[in-house]
């Protein structure tokens, strides 16, 4: 069976003044239609870079490895170079929702005009049709007074409403894949709950594939079917959401879960993961997590074990060094 999206052995490197930075190393992921893949990890773990690679939105100093493939709908996105091809993925087959909707809308152009503009680029329709599609979409995402909002600017909308408008805009071209990069992080919990429910409804209705990036494991538990846990550019553990959250194997996943304050268990102490995430300029060799790993697996500590995911349960993959460390703790 072919997946909607399949990322194979992807490396992403940036050339900077300080040297070549490995932002993402050897990542393989897949998303099916109607499925939500959650990517979790701390800042600097390469979540956004991975998502942006799918739309080829990374800056000019980016280099991809030659044997990497990003297969979307049977086409390798990484081979796309012409404007025509890129247009197909940017906003056509793939849409993206960002964290800060205020920064994503042009401040001096009315929201409606921005929605119509992208529809005219991607669909073969006239302005009137584009306007009615946009207004219907605004209504669909729960914006009251859609006709009025259509003629307003981004600053006139509240945070939650702006995020709804952003979702409406991303969905109006009917993409096959939606990339949601921390879409609820800037919102209040009550609004976050509304937006999460909206995204879930829409996925069901349109049967699209979704990559949902967040650092909040609670949000992941609510929306995702599968989860990939990233640390410093590598996937350290991936599998079905139930497995990962209830039966984590990798010490990093365990650490993230223990660091999370749980409102149902107030007596549990908060245990931080010691140390800081290393700079990508001096990325550890071998297991990337070894500098902060609380369980000193001697071989892993020297960096002699290479990163490699191993299937421990059907569909549940864990980095091989992490399996050993995980058994110690």
């Amino acid at each position: 069976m072919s997946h909607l999206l399949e990322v194979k052995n992807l490396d992403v490197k940036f050339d900077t003044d300080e040297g070549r930075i490995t932002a993402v190393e050897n990542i393989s992921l897949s998303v099916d239609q109607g499925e939500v893949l959650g990517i979790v990890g701390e800042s600097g773990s390469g979540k956004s870079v991975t998502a942006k690679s799918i739309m080829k939105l990374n800056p000019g100093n980016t280099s991809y490895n030659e044997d990497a493939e990003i297969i979307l709908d049977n086409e390798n996105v990484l081979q796309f170079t012409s404007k025509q091809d890129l247009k197909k993925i940017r906003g056509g087959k793939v849409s993206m929702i960002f964290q800060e909707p205020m920064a994503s809308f042009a401040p001096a152009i009315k929201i409606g005009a921005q929605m119509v503009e992208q529809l005219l680029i991607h669909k073969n329709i006239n302005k009137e049709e584009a306007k009615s599609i946009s207004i219907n979409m605004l209504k669909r995402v729960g914006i009251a007074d859609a006709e009025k909002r259509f003629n307003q600017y981004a600053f006139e909308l509240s945070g939650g409403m702006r995020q709804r408008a952003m979702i409406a805009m991303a969905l109006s071209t009917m993409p096959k894949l939606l990339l949601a990069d921390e879409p609820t992080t800037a919102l209040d919990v009550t609004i976050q709950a509304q937006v999460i429910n909206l995204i879930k409804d829409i996925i069901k209705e349109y049967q699209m594939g979704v990559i949902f990036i967040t650092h909040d494991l609670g949000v992941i538990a609510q929306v995702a079917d599968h989860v990939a846990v990233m640390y410093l550019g590598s996937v350290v553990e991936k599998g079905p959401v139930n497995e990962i959250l209830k039966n984590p194997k990798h010490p990093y996943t365990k650490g993230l879960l223990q660091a999370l304050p749980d409102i149902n268990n107030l007596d549990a102490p908060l245990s931080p993961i010691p140390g800081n995430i290393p700079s990508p300029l001096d990325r550890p060799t071998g297991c990337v997590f070894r500098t902060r790993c609380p369980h000193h697996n001697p071989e892993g500590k020297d960096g002699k074990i290479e990163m490699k995911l191993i299937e421990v349960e059907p569909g549940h993959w864990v980095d091989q060094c992490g399996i050993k460390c995980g058994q110690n703790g």
Partner: protein
Amino acid sequence: MGDNLISVNNVSVNFDYQENFISKKQKIHAVNNINIKIKKGSFFGLVGESGSGKTTLGRAILGANKISSGNVIFHDDERDYDLTDMNKQDLKEYRKKAQLIFQDPYAALSPRMTVRDIIAEPLEVMKITNSRQETDERVRDIASKCRLNIEHLRRFPHAFSGGQRQRISIARALVSNPKFIVADESVAALDVSIQADILNLLKQLQTELNLTYLFISHDLSVVAHVCDVVAVMYLGHIVEMGPSRELFKNPKHSYTKALLSSIPSIDPEKRSEAIELKGEIPSALNPPPGCVFRTRCPNPGVDCKGGEIKMGLIEVEPGHWVDQCCAL
């Protein structure tokens, strides 16, 4: 009065607002008639959505916002300070005793000053120390308490990660030996693994240095973990207040209940149990009359009586206060 450090009595803060120069001047009621007592050595939490007035109240208690009515009393060992009636000299003294930790450790530290200069600045500005040697001693002392290395002091903030920067901000706030700290969303910008570290540090410093905190946050699970007493704010009013365990185990106000149920559960099998609140927080320019939560209340008509019930807290259990509209 003996064991309270701060008494906030009927405090309201209004801001003037004029949409453009010909329109009528209006008042924004940011904080309305707040009464709280913060006990010495307690970790007092203030939660609520954005726009609920948490930060305005925090700043009012620090004397950084003008208080429109009511007063705030700081009970020091020797004397009380009334924030609404203070001369410059008193304000200077008060500043040494009450300090603020900000949300964003990337914006709060000057990129052109070394860590040592950042931490030493309050000492110099407030003329607390008399010689450079004395200043250095205090800086080193507080830095080690905040788990910063001595070598770090010579570096600039850009060399540090978010968690380390937040420790620098904490050291700067504590260097003048304050008694009272307002921590405004101080862990919101940090990753979870680092967040736990900073929360543990704040707790540890509290016992070591005898601090009292006002901890402002929108994250209920964090507040539940660290705070002794919690007040829930909505649209400038406190709608519920009580010991944190009691309040989170046994919430009475429908807003608190909705907030608690909105926290995404870490258990994938417990999906969509959230009591979904319709709409958004109304504008503080014209808040709904009566109970301010009426417009979004998931069970209205209980006995709101169309806004006839005025806002006011009632004690339902010892120390547990709930707004009367929901308590009745």
